């Protein structure tokens, strides 16, 4: 078990967005998170790398790092948590004033203080892996959405996180660009990266995931292997949701 989460809760003011969630993320496995808009998927992912501070919950990592959010965690702990996970955003959030290569090398060189030459080589390798070696000296605005998102993936991989988080990585893309990004994520799954992916792509989720979570209204409604949750869900809410996205009227 890479990460085990118990009793995760988060409110924004009076709005309870996550209500007592238990999740386990297994090393080398892919977890997909599905559910209707507003169900708390993004919030959960953001809690996993400390972009949101949970109100409650205990995170236990396989290396012994334990964070109990009952008491406010300190800056050091927050930073440790953040550096465990790499995040890929729906809107890419690339640094517009840096080239593709510089976007990827920024974390390892500035934060991790690793050797510049080694990092540059590693970063070129990562950009090659996402199919963008020939574009590495271009700025984000010179790249298509799909290309930007692939740079985003390379940037997250570069800090060598234990866990990769994806928040609807293809939702902002034109349909013809979705495939190239999903292909990259599939390749990562084959390399046994541990990943948690929020997605509405049912087909993709069923191919790539080891486990699927269906969330609604701040709860995990149903959880299990993709064949079960996506092909034969037990819960009515899951069935209705899948119906809606598979047969949009």
């Amino acid at each position, binding site marked *: 078990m890479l990460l085990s989460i118990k009793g995760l809760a988060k409110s924004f003011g009076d709005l309870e967005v996550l209500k007592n969630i238990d999740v386990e993320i297994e090393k080398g496995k892919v977890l997909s998170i599905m559910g209707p808009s507003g169900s708390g998927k993004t919030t959960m992912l953001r809690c996993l*790398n*400390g*972009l949101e501070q949970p109100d409650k919950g205990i995170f236990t990592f396989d290396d012994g790092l334990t964070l109990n959010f009952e008491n406010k965690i300190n800056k050091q702990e927050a*930073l440790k948590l*953040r*550096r465990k*996970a*790499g*995040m890929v*955003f729906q*809107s890419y*959030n*690339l*640094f*517009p*004033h840096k080239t593709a290569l510089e976007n990827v090398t*920024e*974390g390892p060189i*500035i*934060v*991790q203080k690793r050797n510049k030459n080694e990092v540059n080589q590693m970063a070129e390798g990562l950009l090659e892996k996402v199919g963008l070696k020939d574009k590495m000296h271009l*700025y*984000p*605005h010179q790249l298509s959405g799909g290309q930007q998102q692939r740079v985003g993936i390379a*940037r*997250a991989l*570069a*800090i060598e996180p234990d866990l990769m988080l994806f928040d609807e990585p293809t939702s902002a893309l034109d349909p013809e660009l979705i495939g190239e990004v999903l292909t990259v994520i599939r390749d990562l799954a084959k390399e046994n990266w541990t990943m948690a992916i929020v997605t509405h792509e049912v087909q993709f989720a069923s191919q790539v995931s080891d486990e699927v979570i269906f969330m609604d209204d701040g709860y995990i409604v149903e959880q299990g292997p993709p064949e079960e949750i996506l092909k034969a869900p037990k819960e009515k809410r899951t069935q209705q949701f899948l119906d809606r996205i598979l047969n949009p009227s």
Partner: protein
Amino acid sequence: MFPLNNMVLFSITGDLQGWELFVNSLLPMFLGAIKYTIPLTLISFTLGLVLALLTAIMRLSKSPILRVPAVIYVSAIRGTPLLVQLFIIFYGLPSLNITIDPFPSAIIAFSLNVGAYASEIIRASILSISKGQWEAGYTIGMTQNTVLKRIIIPQAARVSVPPLSNTFISLVKDTSLASLILVTELFRRAQEIAAVTYDFMLIYIEAAVLYWIICFLLSLVQQALEKHLERYTAT
């Protein structure tokens, strides 16, 4: 008689007129610009920018101990005339036994002024950078200070270039106020010449043209700079 305390003015006498007066006045005014107007602008702008960045960051801080002094400073400077600020520093402070020469007095007043106005520009530019940029920095492991330094400020700097260039060009013109605290910059030279020759129209027009030329050249630089920065920003 107006005291002709400046060596450059020796060749200008009351009988000079027209074209000859115009040509003979050019050098003293030009030297006033080179020795005072331009250094005053450059030094005040540089110091003002440092002050502005500091103030902007203080104003964005969550801690009231940092925020409140910054808010008061900006409000006080923006809410009072620059000329009054100059007079307080040069004519007012001596009564507290603090006497500062004209040129450094002007530097202090103009720097404080630029600091306040530019801090608002910088603050707005920092706020204009999307939250996603902060978060992207955090997710690659950066601390808040590192994100500010590496990700936010470089982008905010680009956003602030056009409005800051305007502040700079305004400052060139505002330095003429320093003539009132005896800094012998371009406009004070003009006043001194006019006082001897009584040809106010010619001399003040000449001063105006010189300011115009300086500002026109600066606006060319501004355009080039903006064009240069556009290369990096999304279209």
